[in-house]
């Protein structure tokens, strides 16, 4: 009456049970570690985001919870490669003061260069930082602040004080230094920042008026 494979001593059944037990134990362990580390990981990520925002928008310019006031935008010209740029809004007593945009340049020497760009409401760049990149150490990594202060040459720039044709490296007749033996990396960063500035100028009002997507993203986390 018994099918052989229903017999717990049958090899197939034994194997299935053994794998099942290991999978179950592994999953239980992961679930436990995940829930135990989740608050701390979220806190680390929040701290990191605050740190990034603080580097590109001066803290005395705003008094809202900027890191919770953001929207996602897409624009094939300004933010190519099918990406969504994240735009954080800084407000002083509710009045638009600045934005910080997180997006990436797609044309680095080794692909993506993740950037955060702070732009004051009057269109001036208040800071740019590279968040992540895979450019060649010693050649392209001068875009990092800990390697050189090249990235600070964006401070104070705007579409008004720097003409469109100057938004590139000196080799192409622009205003920005290249590095010795590395033109591709800085060119990619300069052009990406320029496109973001133009996007900001054209869409400033809409950028500040759309409702924040923070609540929705919190919801999705759960």
């Amino acid at each position: 009456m018994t099918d052989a494979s229903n017999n717990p001593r049958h090899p197939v059944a034994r194997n299935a049970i053994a794998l099942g037990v290991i999978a179950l134990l592994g999953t239980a362990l992961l679930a436990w570690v995940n829930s135990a580390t989740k608050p701390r990981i979220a806190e680390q990520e929040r701290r990191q985001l605050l740190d990034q925002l603080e580097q590109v928008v001066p803290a005395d310019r705003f008094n809202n919870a900027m890191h919770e006031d953001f929207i996602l935008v897409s624009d094939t010209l300004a933010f190519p490669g099918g990406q969504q740029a994240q735009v954080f809004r800084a407000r002083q007593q509710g009045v638009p003061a600045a934005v910080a945009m997180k997006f990436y340049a797609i044309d680095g020497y080794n692909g993506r260069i993740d950037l955060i760009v702070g732009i004051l409401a009057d269109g001036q760049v208040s800071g740019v930082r590279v968040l992540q990149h895979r450019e060649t150490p010693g050649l392209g990594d001068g875009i990092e602040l800990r390697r050189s202060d090249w990235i600070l040459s964006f401070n104070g720039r705007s579409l008004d004080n720097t003409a469109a044709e100057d938004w590139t490296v000196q080799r192409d007749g622009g205003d920005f230094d290249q590095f010795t033996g590395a033109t591709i990396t800085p060119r990619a960063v300069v052009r990406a920042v320029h496109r973001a500035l133009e996007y900001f100028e054209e869409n400033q009002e809409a950028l500040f008026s759309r409702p924040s997507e923070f609540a929705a993203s919190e919801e999705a986390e759960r």
Partner: protein
Amino acid sequence: MSANYRDIMADGIWRQNTGLVVLLGLCPLLAVSNTVINALGLGLATLLVLVVTNTAVSLSRPMLRPEVRIPAYVLIIASAVTVVELLMRAWTHDLYQTLGIFIPLIVTNCAIIGRAEAFAARNRPLPALADGFAVGLGFTIALLALGAVRELAGYGTLLRDAELLFGPVAAGWQITVAPVDWEFLLAILPPGAFIALGCLVAARNWFDARRQAAADQAKLDMQPATEPS
């Protein structure tokens, strides 16, 4: 029994060193050894994974028949790596981001499944744990040596970016031995990893050969009368 543990340690750290003798797990070894701190971070993560997986594999021995052992090891290794990844994201977030993809890729380090199969599956939990520790330590030492050579040659420093692993207190730990602005790209880029590894393997073999020669000589000296040659 105690000699047994001594053998386990000597094999893992020197005689059968994963990185320098068995040459397993070369992908992370070559990719993440450009600075001492990166090497140390990945080495410690791998060590932790090895200790956990070896112990778990040994404990699961009574349950496992040979035909399902490999899927079972894969489950165990994947769980252990994910746990280490979560812990690193929570406690050493900056280092986690620097090492990036190489933490999840510990799963594919064949040294780990290799130890599960070659040692943990045939031994009791305590020796298996010791073996995981010894092999992990050997891998960490190989990584560290490679990282030190490449960082010294490439940047002229040691312990740069120590704060990624040890927090803000370590910000001043960097030791600079070369003139400022020293940079030797070859050492930092992937070809430098191959060249430096080749030199390290050669140095280890040379050292072993010399020790072997000295031991042989000593043996000869002990019995000169019986067998003159």
